[in-house]
């Protein structure tokens, strides 16, 4: 099995430990990664998608053609990348006039969008292509006794019509939960599970309001689950939950800290990766949790 790894800006520059986690976990599970050399930004929603539809789809499709020419699907760990690429692909595949205009632009770069590659999200791909049981067989460490709270992230769920990997009911998602349970975690439910974390455009526009959203979520998690760890399904959510807690502590809005990892980081650790490579660039104290996991061998 092989898939093209679309790294994305935030993962490459802000949290390369997450990039390294993907580069460890997929081969460890028997899935080879292609670099998709020459990839660019997806592009993120605040850039070309906010200027015009054809420009958006042209830059997205240039990225997609990198996978198409190798006959591969594309893998993302970032919700924005997954959303932007999937929405562009949906438009290209359902609106022939958009596809025609985009291909005129791509021709200038010697490319053509065909529509032969699918956009996949990290843990959905693993769930659907390998399944939890095969993953369980490869684990070096298990999370038995560890309680986690989930942050699935907006773009892994909505709008469901554009995504290749689907939940049965997007307002009651279960895949991330089952993937965490496969690692041995106890997953607690909390009432604000589906709330947005406030990262992205909202945070760039109004930091105070964005912190208000993540504070609501953190308090809900703490009161209803009291987790050892937050598991995010999206790199933007990872960054928001990881960086907002120190600020909220300083502002005396919260008096606790919950370590945060992306699912792929947690998986890589359970598969035996070096934590100094796959989970070391965050602000929250993930080391204490990782030490607990690794002691349990």
């Amino acid at each position: 099995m092989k898939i093209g790894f679309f790294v994305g800006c935030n993962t490459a520059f802000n949290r390369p430990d997450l990039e390294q986690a993907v580069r460890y976990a997929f081969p460890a599970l028997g899935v080879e990664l292609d670099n998709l050399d020459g990839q660019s930004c997806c592009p993120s929603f605040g850039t070309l998608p906010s200027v015009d539809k054809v420009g958006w789809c042209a830059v997205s499709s240039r990225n997609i053609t990198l996978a198409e020419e190798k006959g591969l699907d594309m893998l993302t760990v970032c919700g924005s990348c997954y959303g932007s690429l999937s929405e562009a692909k949906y438009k290209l595949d359902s609106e022939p006039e958009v596809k025609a205009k985009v291909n005129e632009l791509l021709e200038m770069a010697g490319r053509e969008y065909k529509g032969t590659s699918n956009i996949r999200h990290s843990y959905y791909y693993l769930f659907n292509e390998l399944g939890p049981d095969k993953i369980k067989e490869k684990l070096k460490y298990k999370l038995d006794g560890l309680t986690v709270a989930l942050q699935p992230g907006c773009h892994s769920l909505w709008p469901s019509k554009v995504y290749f990997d689907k939940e049965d009911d997007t307002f009651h998602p279960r895949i991330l939960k089952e993937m965490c349970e496969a690692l041995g975690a106890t997953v607690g439910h909390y009432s604000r599970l589906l709330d947005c974390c406030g990262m992205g455009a909202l945070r760039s526009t109004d930091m105070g309001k964005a912190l208000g959203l993540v504070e609501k979520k953190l308090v809900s998690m703490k009161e209803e689950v009291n987790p050892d760890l937050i598991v995010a399904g999206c790199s933007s959510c990872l960054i928001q939950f990881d960086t907002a807690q120190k600020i909220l502590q300083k502002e005396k809005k919260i008096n606790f800290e919950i370590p945060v990892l992306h699912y792929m980081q947690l998986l890589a650790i359970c598969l035996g990766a070096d934590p100094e490579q796959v989970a070391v660039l965050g602000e929250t104290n993930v080391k204490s949790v990782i030490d607990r996991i690794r002691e349990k061998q």
Partner: protein
Amino acid sequence: MSETQGALGVVNLSAGDPNLVGEIKELGGEEILECIQCAKCAAVCPMVLAGFPFFNKKVIQAILLGLREELLEDASIWACQSCNRCTEICPRELNPFEVVQAMRRLAFREFALPTMAINGLKSLYDTGHAVYMSGAGKSREKVGLPEKPPSTIADEKALQELRTIIRNTDLADLGIIPMGD
């Protein structure tokens, strides 16, 4: 509100811009007239929870009323997370997110832009990444990765390819960012 007459908050309906709906339809909000203002989109919108004055339902309402200036003067549309909860739940299948996106596109054409939008586009054109951190090489090497990811940052030919494409989009016509080689 600039076109308000009489008591505060009263909107003079005849003073609205009748062309606004048509422009929004042209810019990607094709289904806007399907809206029945049921507010299911508002019920799931993070911007409502966060407390922004304009959000999907109200943006649509203001467009239908032709309130161009009011919309352009408020930065709320730039806080849209593109999360598409609204698209998922809309009983009229009108894609409220696409209407907000169309309103952003209109704002671009009126140069009513936040600096972050310009910075993101400039970074995208210059490096191929909307989010680029020039000091990231050190943390990449710390975790055992090459200094640069396998992207336009490490591939001049790919960057030129991307720039060629961007130079032929609407962004170039708008002249918002410099586009050199």
